[in-house]
């Protein structure tokens, strides 16, 4: 049975169900469980649910240590940029342990953080920095775009035996959607085809999935059939589904809220160019944020971000066509 839930509630439901299922799941971090009324604290108690100081290095490092000692911590880091304070633990500790010990240990750790708050949060709280964590062997990256995925990817992240960066999108927190009840897992490394199409493949992540779908709807009105793909996890990345789509459409537009250079979009473009060059009837186009820190003021913020107009224009470009009136 599915019912409508907001994205944020779907995340919390997954954590709650996993904590009920497995006593080794812990949940700690900033500004959670500060009173006895907190539902997690009430249900699971203060051994397993704790507020921490604002101490990212310690929060993430303790998550690693508790994982090494047999637990499965979910660390609430609030905002993705706060992870940068503890970057050594994220990039150079958590994902290395298993490898360096010749497979003796596992680090089942979820680092949970919000990102992409492009609603006037200015330069230091708006970043789409998931690309920074993509190229780290041993680390997984999940980017849910729908409430159902928010639940299913969190459950999978908690059960995964590796460190996982779980990035929830701030602009999606109150989005409602159908969410299955009870146990619900979305496998990592399995892209979702959000809309089927034949003329062009559009790949988006997180908030840009919705922008891509809106652009596809407009393009349908012009007689252009766009397929929209959401990779759901960037590490592992389901290149096969993207390649299969490009083999069908011959055209690829990539949408990324991050800046172009070293972005997820650039990685996907390279992989398609590597493995699917012969499918392409036109060069790949990337619709990303412009190379700037996100500005505070609205007109400048809107200017640097990808949007439907930019996606539609990129599709026209790869198809080598001006808009065609619907018949």
């Amino acid at each position: 049975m599915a019912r409508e839930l907001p994205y944020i509630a779907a995340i919390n439901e997954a954590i709650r169900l996993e904590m009920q299922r497995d006593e080794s799941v812990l949940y700690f971090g900033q500004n959670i469980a500060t009173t006895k009324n907190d539902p997690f604290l009430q249900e699971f108690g203060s051994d397993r649910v704790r507020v921490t100081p604002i101490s990212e290095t310690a929060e993430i490092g303790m998550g690693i240590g508790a994982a090494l000692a047999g637990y499965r911590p979910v660390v609430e880091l609030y905002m993705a940029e706060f992870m940068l304070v503890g970057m050594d633990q994220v990039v150079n500790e958590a994902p290395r342990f298993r490898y360096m010990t010749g497979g003796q240990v596992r680090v089942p750790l979820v680092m949970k953080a919000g990102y992409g708050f492009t609603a006037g949060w200015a330069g230091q709280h708006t970043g789409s920095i998931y690309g920074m964590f993509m190229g780290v062997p041993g680390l997984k990256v999940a980017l849910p775009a729908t409430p159902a995925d928010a639940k299913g990817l969190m459950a999978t992240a908690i059960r995964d035996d590796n460190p996982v960066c779980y990035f929830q999108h701030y602009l999606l927190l109150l989005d409602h959607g159908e969410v299955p009840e009870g146990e619900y897992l979305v496998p990592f490394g399995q892209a979702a085809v959000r809309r089927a199409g034949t003329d062009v493949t559009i790949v988006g992540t997180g908030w840009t999935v919705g922008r891509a779908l809106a652009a596809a709807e407009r393009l349908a009105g012009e007689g252009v059939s766009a397929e929209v793909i959401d990779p759901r996890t960037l590490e592992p990345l389901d290149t096969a589904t993207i390649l299969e789509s490009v083999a069908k459409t011959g055209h690829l537009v990539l949408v990324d809220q991050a800046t172009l250079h070293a972005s997820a979009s650039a990685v996907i473009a390279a992989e398609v160019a590597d493995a699917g060059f012969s499918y392409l009837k036109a060069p790949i186009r990337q619709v990303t944020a412009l190379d700037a820190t996100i500005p505070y003021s609205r007109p400048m913020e809107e200017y640097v971000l990808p949007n439907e107009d930019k996606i539609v224009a990129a599709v026209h470009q790869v198809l080598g066509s001006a808009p065609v009136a619907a018949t």
Partner: protein
Amino acid sequence: MTDTNGVEGLDRDRLVWMWTQMVRVREFEERVKRTFEEHPGVIRGHTHLADGAEASIVGSLATLRPGDQLMTTYRCHGYPLVLGTSPKAMMAEIYGKAAGLCGGYGGSMHLTDVSRGFLGTSGIVGQGIPQATGAAYAAQIRRQGQVVLCFFGDGATKQGAFHESLNIASLWKLPIVYVLENNNYNVVTRVEQEDANAAAGEPLAVKARAHSMPGVTVDGGDPLAVYGEVGAAVARARDGGGPTLVESKVYRLSAHGNSIAPPGVPLHFPEHEAITTFGATEEYEAAKRGDPVPRFRAKLVTDTTLSPAEADRITEAARTEMQEAVEFGLESELPKPEDAVKYVYA
């Protein structure tokens, strides 16, 4: 110079100036807060107010000389006002306008006025502390007697950046004063829930001991007490005596910031977390009764430094000034969209 209050260097004009600055900060913050109701959508993102910390801010900044410098947190509206920055430029920045102090690039969290020694803010807890320490290193080797003030909150003292910086500053005898504005809450977490010293009933100033520097705790609601402690620390720093940690106990009278919501949901300023999260209404009411702005006014009126009529005139002038700032901010133009890519590199 007449010393009317047993605090060296503060004559009547200076005392009146101090209260005037406190009133200006309060009135500015009130207008920022009212903007959420009166002009919905004009302020975006996250805004943090200094109401309740006016005495601490003014008492600290009153110790500075021209050429001294400071760095602060994202709760940054109070400092530039006291330094003389135009409230019009500040309000325009908070409203995202091209005429804003930072051209609309930074917003509420990054008000910066380098011309007045205010080198900037960090939006990330604790991360400005090493930067201020670096400015103090620069001041030390420039040998012009400059001092740096570094402002941060109680939450920041649980960052590695705090301890790493205090160690180096003490080791190198840097000319810096660390002003720890302890307002009892990091966002919705009470200090005794996240700080071992607070949980043990000790002041946060004891953290200075680990770094072999003086640590003092002062009533941040009393601008003269703050002036005395920060002033002594500034004098020591200027003389080559090294850094000090001054814990200034304040109570923020507003919530941590405005509500957090995706676009489309109107933003507002909720009640203080003492009430909304902890049900500690009496704690909050007690803080309101101890509000530093009327408290200092009462002191100055009682000792006849200030007449009630003059105090009223000062308040009225501050209200007019901030009304003009609001009007300027509202009427100013938005920046050109394409300017977004202007300042990426020097």
